[in-house]
């Protein structure tokens, strides 16, 4: 649910990084947090377990600057990827304006990626959201690993990207693909605001 305040010329959008456990959702936010200047970001909050796995969510607010005369802010969230945190994922997904699906490119994780994508669609449907209208981009993370360990982008696209949404190869730990992914979802979310579509 994007909030548009015409009086103060402000727009706030919620973007959720979704995907299986250990795919690199939190790593994406850490990289963004490290790159964005201090006056353009809030505190990064991580509600994590003692072993650093996301328990509830990570949260990072960033100030995108002025677009079409509106001060534009993005609230970036991650969900916990582990299967047993289903309730939490639903709560964090509530009111999302866009989703970044972070897939783990390791060949042995393909099944987890597919299950997580199905879980995303099921949770959106449960909230009355037509998944086909939800702005979505897919990031194939860990493409920096040795080629014998990873599934190629083409194969991952075949397995996961049945909507044909923008997809990005990435190495979130070191940065390649992180910026492109954020730009991709930003464009989609803001495009809806430029057309006034409700997307229900």
């Amino acid at each position, binding site marked *: *649910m994007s909030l548009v305040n015409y009086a103060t010329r402000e727009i706030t959008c919620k973007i959720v990084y979704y995907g299986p456990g250990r795919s690199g959702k939190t790593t994406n936010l850490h990289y963004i947090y490290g790159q964005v200047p201090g006056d353009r970001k809030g505190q990064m909050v991580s509600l994590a377990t003692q072993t650093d796995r996301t328990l509830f969510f990570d949260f990072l*607010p960033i100030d995108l600057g002025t677009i079409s005369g509106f001060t534009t802010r993005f609230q970036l969230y991650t969900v916990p990827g582990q299967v047993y945190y289903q309730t939490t994922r639903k709560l964090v997904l509530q*009111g*999302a304006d866009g989703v970044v699906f972070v897939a783990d490119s390791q060949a042995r994780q393909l099944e987890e990626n597919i299950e997580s994508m199905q879980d995303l669609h099921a949770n959106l449907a449960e909230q009355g959201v037509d998944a086909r209208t939800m702005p979505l981009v897919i990031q194939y993370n860990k493409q920096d690993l040795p080629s014998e360990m990873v599934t190629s982008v083409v194969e991952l696209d075949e397995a996961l990207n049945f909507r044909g949404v923008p997809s990005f190869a990435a190495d979130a730990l070191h940065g390649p693909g992180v910026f492109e992914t954020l730009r991709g979802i930003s464009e989609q979310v803001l495009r809806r605001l430029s057309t*006034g579509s409700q997307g*229900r």
Partner: protein
Amino acid sequence: MIRHSVMVGWADAPVKRYVDDARLQLSVLMHPSGQVLAQHGFQRKLDVQTACALSAAINATAVQLGLLIDGAPFTDLHYAGTLRQLYLAQIPIATGTLVLLSVFDEESSLGIVQLYLDELRSTLATTAPAEQPDSPPALAEDFERELNTNLAALFGRG
């Protein structure tokens, strides 16, 4: 359901009056998804967003915990700190339920907060729009150039 909520300031004045009457330090009215609707007391807008995200999480957890233990959501939560107290409350309006975070110190008390909170609930029940207005386009269609410039600047690529 995804909507672009157009803020028309219906919440600003009632929340400001509530803050003054209940002698609060901070108060934020938000959508349960963590989007801020009105706030008084925070200096930095990015801090407001963080407070909303965490408050929404507490509220969501309390609702689920209440359902698990009591069969009904826990709607209001109170934390009594030594220096500051926190009160997290749900506010029903025609289109759903909002969440209100209130922070106060020895200048106020739980009783005063609850008293004026009831008043705020009544006010918002009448001032909140019954239906979301249709969202007109917010951004110009050629927004991409500004988006790309801003993102590049944000990532030190400008």
